[in-house]
């Protein structure tokens, strides 16, 4: 898919380079949280609740006297892993669904298309809230809910790609050589349709981070003491007058991360010149 020369072009462009650095920093925080965080995320010290940012606690402390910077770093881990896992699941299922629907056509295709059309324009937040009501609150439920909320998008995108590829001669040729359906779909069609879907998935990861935060705001995501940026903002709402930084820092973290994802995605789109494919779906 992305050739190394393209990658170099992306990284050398100003927005691609800067956003890549930002994303790298966030990912390092997420992966190496226990090594980077100055304190444990769950050790309470009620005497030190709601402290202003200081040298000791760079971002201050929360309502339980926990170091906010440490929770932000661990929060990156939760928020990113939820968003990435959810979107990966969504992309995987969406691609298989979209590809099979497009490849086989007929009633199955019509069914998938109808379902996709309907849920695609349904607010993701409502889909997620209803799903969590069914399966109960928690991190795993959040992941499942988010992945289902975005399923339509990837199914649709893949389907359009495959539809275009299906009629090309090499598919016919492979088919006449006696290749099975699975072989054609997974070895020949999907790899060619992969790039736009992966890029769309990357962009959707940004939206998924925001959706996770919103679910966290409603208290449905990560359960205490696990920090996620959304859950941190949820408890920060009640403290907004005495300790506004509790809600401001996670909000900024989300904004910066999502902007970086968007810019990087834009750079990729421009370099690979796949904007039309993404939009037409």
């Amino acid at each position, binding site marked *: 898919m992305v050739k190394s020369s393209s990658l170099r072009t992306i990284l050398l462009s100003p927005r691609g380079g800067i956003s890549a650095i930002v994303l790298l920093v966030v990912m390092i925080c997420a992966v190496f949280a226990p090594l980077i965080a100055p304190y444990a995320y769950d050790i309470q010290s009620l005497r030190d609740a709601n402290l202003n940012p200081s040298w000791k606690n760079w971002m201050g402390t929360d309502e339980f006297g926990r170091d906010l910077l440490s929770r932000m770093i661990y929060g990156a881990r939760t928020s990113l892993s939820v968003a990435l896992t959810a979107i990966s699941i969504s992309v995987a299922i969406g691609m298989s669904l979209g590809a099979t629907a497009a490849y086989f056509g007929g009633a199955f295709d019509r069914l998938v298309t109808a379902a996709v059309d309907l849920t695609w324009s349904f607010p993701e937040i409502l889909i997620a809230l209803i799903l969590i009501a069914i399966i109960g609150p928690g991190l795993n439920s959040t992941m499942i809910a988010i992945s289902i909320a975005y399923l339509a998008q990837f199914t649709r995108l893949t389907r359009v790609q495959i539809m275009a590829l299906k009629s090309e001669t090499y598919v016919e040729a492979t088919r006449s050589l006696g290749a099975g359906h699975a072989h054609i779909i997974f070895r020949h069609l999907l790899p060619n349709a992969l790039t736009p879907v992966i890029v769309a998935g990357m962009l959707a990861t940004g939206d998924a981070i925001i959706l996770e935060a919103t679910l966290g705001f*409603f208290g449905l995501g990560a359960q205490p003491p696990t920090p996620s940026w959304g859950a941190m903002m949820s408890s920060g709402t*009640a403290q907004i*007058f005495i300790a506004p930084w509790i809600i401001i820092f996670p909000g900024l973290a989300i904004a910066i991360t999502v902007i970086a994802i968007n810019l990087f995605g834009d750079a990729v789109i421009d370099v690979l010149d796949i904007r039309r494919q993404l939009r037409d779906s």
Partner: protein
Amino acid sequence: MRYTAKAMLLSGSALLSAGLLSLAPSASAMAQEAIFVMPARDVGAPSYNPILGTRLNAATTLIFDRMVIQDADQSFHGQLATSWETSADGLTWTFKLRPNVKFHDGEPFNAATIVWWLPKFLGTENAFMTDAIDKVDVIDNLTVKFTMKNPDPNMLFNMASSFMGIPSPKSFDQLGDKFGVTGAVGTGPFKLESFVVGQQTVLVRNEAYNSASDLSVNQGPAKLKKITLREIAEDSTAFLELKTGGVDMLLSVPTDFLPRLSSEKGTKVVTLPGTEVYYVAINTSVEPFTDIKVREAMAFAINQKEILASLFGGVGEEAHTFLISGLAEAKVDPKLLIAYDPARSRKALDEAGWVMSSDGVRAKAGTRLQVKLWTQSGTEFKRITEVVQAQLKAVGIGTDITAFDAATITAQYRKKTEHQLAVRVYSWANADILDWFFAGKRAGHPNHSMWVNATSEALNEKAMKGSRTWDERVANFRAYHENLLSQFVFAPIYQPVQNFAYSQARITMPATVRGTRLQSQTIVDIEKK
């Protein structure tokens, strides 16, 4: 009163039932019209039906009068009854009714109303309040006599409950299921003009009001002409509305807002004794809490003092029993009080065979002491629960928190074996709440502790049905309470105070609040500046 208790038991979601408002023209600036914000816990209360309702909101006492009301000093004052007496054996009660009282629909209030009204409770959830009354007889147009099945020392307390607001028989029968939704007719100082559940209730003055108790200065119609009661789910939003002048009064303010409110100029906070207790329900029917030692360890691991000091700035009280401290039944043998004692907690766990492991969570025969800790959505719940989690961890009990909405958690409780520990709150100023939460017949919900025990049942039965006088009732309930404390079926945490806040610039509040809550007897005296 019980409505908040029921609110916690049965409410729809506290978090997601967003406070809603209709697009009505702004009326805040007009004379003698005030906007109040209902307690967040009352948001979404579906009806103003005092007989069938399980959740009644703070406006209920403005629409319906009761026979009697209770003052802060526990004394009873007549509202629709002017006097009452009971026979020496406690088996009859005679009430004289207030003359010339009319319902909002013009129907007269008299002895016939009472005869119609009391039997309506049969078969409803609120039936236990009138359970002891065998029959009601009309002595004359304004006198009724209750004949009792057994003496009920709690009679007047029950009569003073919000659920004892008397509706107009005609409207009640006419509206049927819809009474309290599309209309609500009582004799109270305000008439229901409109009610949109989850959004707002508009009340207008009852110009013919003449049944104020001697607790109110104002004996005629209320000073305020119109009250709009908004429902706002998020406490911070309500607070900002008061701060910016969008509303005149918040009927309830969370304790952790007090430091901020007291620094607001022009805002006055009034604090009344609390009727709530936060506690952890312990499911005694599932491992590891079938072992009384583990329950003991759990109960004594909770640091009430730390929670009071750091989460609530010292406002309120530590809870060491199940009942609010003002009740005589809460004065138990000091040896039975449950107060933070980490050494006792660790010792109990050691004795039960749970050994500390390197990760800070105890284990026994390969099983970790890791349990479910449930809580409900809402800031105070979550804050208390997170601290409880840390405190339990300190003695080696690991917990996994899940915050549920109210309907889901109730459904889960009813399964009886899904829950282990649950942080809860109730609001009720009478010892009979023990029966509510620990009677074997209610195991699952609301007996979340799943406590079914012959000794306790006998003590409960004696307290509920076998008390002839108030003193006897106190002694019996105290014995039942001590029995429950000795079995560690729950762990007490915190007893908040009630706070309400108003704008001094816009509202004149009477010097003292009459009664155990801010209700009609005080609100009729409130004036807009």
